[in-house]
């Protein structure tokens, strides 16, 4: 088995070396930082693979399972580098330049606290995706030609804020997220105890699942809050739009399983709370009205467990802590934002509701204007 593992290590080193040759020389300007990151990561993995091959501690029988575990992790890492980052660079599309300019401009407008804005690629196979380890944001191919979903870019920009280390500007944001989960934990520990006392612990399993899921949910909630603070009401509209077009049951409550995203109803409640904090009451009421109308025709209804998994007070606390977290990192937020992308996205939603039939014509013109502007 030891020789077999060594053969796999050799094979993996070869593949990693080959991967480096797939990068264009020089890479296009917007992709040079990403290319540099890929080269650095590939080299790091190759030197680790060499160690795995020859270091004496990896030769003993007792360490073969650890050796395999490390090898598998490196194979996974290289998979992501190949399938995501190098693919984005080597399959460059002309729309990549457009989306990069938009992302750069958004970062400038909101005073994004991470110094290097993400590289953007129109290669996504599944809506908007950010890979913080590469600082790479992927959007679908046609996204640059349309405006109504672009507010979701702001949500993706929030993800790296949770994992950047040793940055005094971002630290307070992470501290708020951490403190908020302490509140969530305390809440679920308390109701679990009460359930054990009064209800024979019938719901303990569910409470444990929800407590654990809230660790991920609060991250998504905070990303939504960052989105609505920086993109304004357009973000709330984009959430309605995405849920209407692609969402499943907006009230879905996981009883036993792990879940990374909170349900769409809870997310909307948090977004509405934040709009209220920002004194954007008219926008809040308009979005809320459309949201209720949408719920009237959608499959799925609120069941009795919804309030146990998503207590209204916890959602309000979440909105409050998230709003404070965004305030702490001193980004430019709505309604005082005046940037061209911010104005265009919010104007797009006003236009969409004012006259949906002529919206496409208006949008085409606006998109053309946006991409012809000197906003890089």
């Amino acid at each position, binding site marked *: 088995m030891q020789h077999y593992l060594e053969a796999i290590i050799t094979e993996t080193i070869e593949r990693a070396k080959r991967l480096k040759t797939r990068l264009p020389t020089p890479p296009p300007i917007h992709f040079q930082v990403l290319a540099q990151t890929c080269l650095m990561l590939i080299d790091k993995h190759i030197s680790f693979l060499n160690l795995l091959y020859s270091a004496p*501690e990896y030769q003993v029988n007792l360490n073969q399972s650890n050796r395999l575990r490390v090898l598998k992790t490196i194979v996974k890492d290289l998979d992501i580098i190949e399938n995501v980052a190098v693919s984005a660079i080597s399959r460059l599309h002309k729309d990549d330049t457009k989306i990069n300019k938009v992302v750069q401009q958004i970062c400038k407008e909101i005073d994004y606290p991470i110094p290097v804005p993400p590289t953007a690629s129109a290669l996504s196979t599944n809506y908007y995706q*950010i890979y913080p380890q590469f600082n790479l944001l992927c959007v679908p191919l046609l996204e640059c030609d349309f405006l109504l979903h672009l507010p979701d870019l702001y949500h993706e920009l929030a993800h790296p804020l949770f994992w950047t280390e040793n940055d005094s500007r971002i630290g307070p944001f*992470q*501290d708020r997220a951490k403190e908020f989960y302490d509140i969530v934990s305390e809440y679920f520990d308390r109701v679990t105890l009460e359930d054990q006392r009064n209800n024979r612990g019938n719901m303990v399993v569910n409470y444990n699942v929800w407590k654990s899921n809230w660790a991920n949910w609060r*991250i998504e909630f905070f990303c939504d809050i960052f989105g609505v603070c920086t993109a304004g009401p357009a973000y709330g509209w984009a959430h309605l739009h995405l849920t209407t077009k692609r969402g499943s049951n907006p009230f879905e409550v996981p009883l036993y399983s792990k879940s*990374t995203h909170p349900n769409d109803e809870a997310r909307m409640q948090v977004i509405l709370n934040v709009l209220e904090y920002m004194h954007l009451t008219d926008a809040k009421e308009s979005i809320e009205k459309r949201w209720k109308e949408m719920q009237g025709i959608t499959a799925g209804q609120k069941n009795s467990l919804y309030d146990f998994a998503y207590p209204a007070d916890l959602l309000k606390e979440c909105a409050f802590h998230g709003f404070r977290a965004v305030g702490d990192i001193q980004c430019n937020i709505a309604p005082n934002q005046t940037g061209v992308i911010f104005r265009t996205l919010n104007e797009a939603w006003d236009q969409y509701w004012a006259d949906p039939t002529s919206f496409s014509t208006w949008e085409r013109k606006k998109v053309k204007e946006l991409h012809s502007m000197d906003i890089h």
Partner: protein
Amino acid sequence: MSDVGLNSNIYDISSKYLTILNRFLVEANYDSTTVSSDAMKEVQMFLHQLSTPLSMSFQIQMVSQIIHTYLKEYLRNQPSEVFLQHLMLSFDNQMGTSPEALKQLALLAEALNEECDNAFSRMRVSR
């Protein structure tokens, strides 16, 4: 919004601490008397961070949550907090390379390894 942003971060943070545990386990399995002080200190610091909920960082809180969820499933009758305290004491008393401590550390490594696998799968089939 897909699950990728969240899951790739969970993958990275789990992988980071898995690497620390793995390094220690590999050195200890090779020769428990020659484990480098760096590897020993890294694990000790990690265990201390896991055991002080109020002062832990956001990243450690996420890792802690992953480990506690796994241990709750695995241990059933023993609270995960007690398990971690016991392991931390082993390191504080220079017993980090004892067979029992190594067994316990291997369990933590398995928790993080499983989370890496799961986060990686979720990234690939993200909605």
